[in-house]
């Protein structure tokens, strides 16, 4: 696979994952359980939008077709979105939101930590900033998982339910294909299969403190990073993209 084509796709996968999660974070704004959490979730949403803009802009540059970050974000359909399915899952309640941020965040943290050493300077630079952000996103989510897991009976049940429902999207976090392989060889991308053990350790540690049992077996979804999504993404996109699509000539 040609490096630029692979790299374009690699960047869009990261950007889509950050953007879709940011969109979910935006939904909380003004509706959080406490004002401090409204601020925290907005803050994380801002970080994620920033990450997506960086990776989209780089993708647009690699593509050299004169498209912008917004063209890529707003003018593709659900089958063309390459995010991991976990981030498109609905907020449902605060426990789902924190569990989603936690399970995805642990991998994003490990991935960016590896990518800071990428031979591609732009990827390394974008990852350096994202790593700082993901470090506290994971800390924030971990603290809440523990609080909720070891809080009241109600909170324990809710966070347990969140874990059990979101677990089916965790294998997918580690999926790779020829895009990754091509870039791993040239020292640009990271081999996420190598991060699994550390991810397991991070997750197990927090789940133990939260008095939660790690789910075993069950269905595991596949292919979000190649456009195979859950039913939720289409709705999210139709809301997110409607204005630029309704007025394609307008510049906002």
């Amino acid at each position, binding site marked *: 696979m040609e490096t630029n084509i692979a790299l374009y796709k690699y960047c869009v996968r990261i950007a889509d994952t950050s953007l879709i999660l940011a*969109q979910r974070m935006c939904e909380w704004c*003004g*509706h959080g359980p*406490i004002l401090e959490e409204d601020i925290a979730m907005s803050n994380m949403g801002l970080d994620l939008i920033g990450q997506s803009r960086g990776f989209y802009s780089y993708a647009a540059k690699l593509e050299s077709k004169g498209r912008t970050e917004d063209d890529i974000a707003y003018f593709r359909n659900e089958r063309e979105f390459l995010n991991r399915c976990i981030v498109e899952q609905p907020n449902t309640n605060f426990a789902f939101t924190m569990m989603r941020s936690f399970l995805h965040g642990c991998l994003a943290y490990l991935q960016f930590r590896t990518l800071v050493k990428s031979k591609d300077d732009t990827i390394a630079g974008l990852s350096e900033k994202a790593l700082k952000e993901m470090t506290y996103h994971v800390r924030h989510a971990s603290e809440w998982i523990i609080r909720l897991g070891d809080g009241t009976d*109600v909170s324990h049940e809710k966070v347990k339910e969140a874990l059990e429902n979101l677990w089916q999207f965790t294998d997918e976090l580690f999926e790779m294909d020829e895009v990754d392989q091509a870039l791993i060889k040239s020292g640009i991308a990271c081999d996420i299969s190598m991060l699994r053990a550390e991810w397991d350790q991070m997750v197990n540690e927090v789940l133990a403190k939260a008095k939660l049992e790690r789910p075993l077996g069950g269905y595991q979804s596949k292919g979000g990073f190649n456009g195979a999504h859950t039913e939720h993404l289409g709705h999210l996109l139709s809301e*997110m993209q409607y204005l630029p699509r309704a007025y394609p000539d307008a510049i*906002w």
Partner: protein
Amino acid sequence: MNQPQIQEDEQKHVDAFNARIAAGKTIEPKDWMPEKYRKQLLRMMSQHAHSEVVGMLPEGNWLTRAPSLMRKAVLLAKVQDEAGHGLYIYSGAETLGTDRAEMIDQLLSGKAKYASIFNYPTLNWADMGAVGWLVDGAAIVNQTALAKCSYGPYARAMIRICKEENFHSKQGYQIMAHMMSGTKEQQEMAQDAINRFWWPVLMMFGPSDADSPNSDDLMKWKVKLYSNDDLRQRFIDRTVPQAEAIGIKIPDDKLKWNPTTRHYEFGEINFDELKSVITGNGPCNKLRMKQRNDAHKNGAWVREAAIAYAEKRAKE
């Protein structure tokens, strides 16, 4: 202590308090203050904090639909600032002896008020421009005055908050300017937004001076330094040229520059509408209260879990 002695001591406090204010010094949380002063400030500050928090809702309504990633980031940063202002002013208000939970209960029960403007809906993207430019613009006019008020924690909060409001107002104006130089549909959206928001924004300054029941004491104590009508005029004078610069029409046929007074004259404000909205009968009063109550209710188990967890750790 006998009664005349108490009265004499009280008078000394009052004299010292008045002297402090007359000398342009601030009143700090531990200073003696008349009970009425404390209550007025608590009312104003808690209303202000509630307004910041309820004010997140009409703009939050467009976060998921912002038409570009840059606009989405800017709007999210702005709404996050409003949450921060709310937190900051609640903390300031707590120095007057009432805690945040109690103030929030008063909001949720409908006992406490918040800015009337947030009871209007945001119906198209240009409303994000109109709210930023006009609502935050009006807030700046109000808050620049409050930054010189006599209560130290409030005045200091306003200095910081005004800096952020300036960014908010500029981003709103920039949205409007951009839309006015855009497609016909964008221009129509922008005009539609100002047509709906102009008059309710003028109402934000409150009733006219003749009908403003709280103003006398507030002015004497330098809680308020300018009257509602003065601030409203200041807002109009600074906003009309901005509107003209981008070619948007202010929906007031009576609006005209008076070279003698060096102020704009403007049409009659429908204060009956203001009265209706602040007494709970505006377009979105029920929705806003439901949104706040739902968030509070849906988050109760989260807050309870955090407390339970903290108590367990404290026992270890």
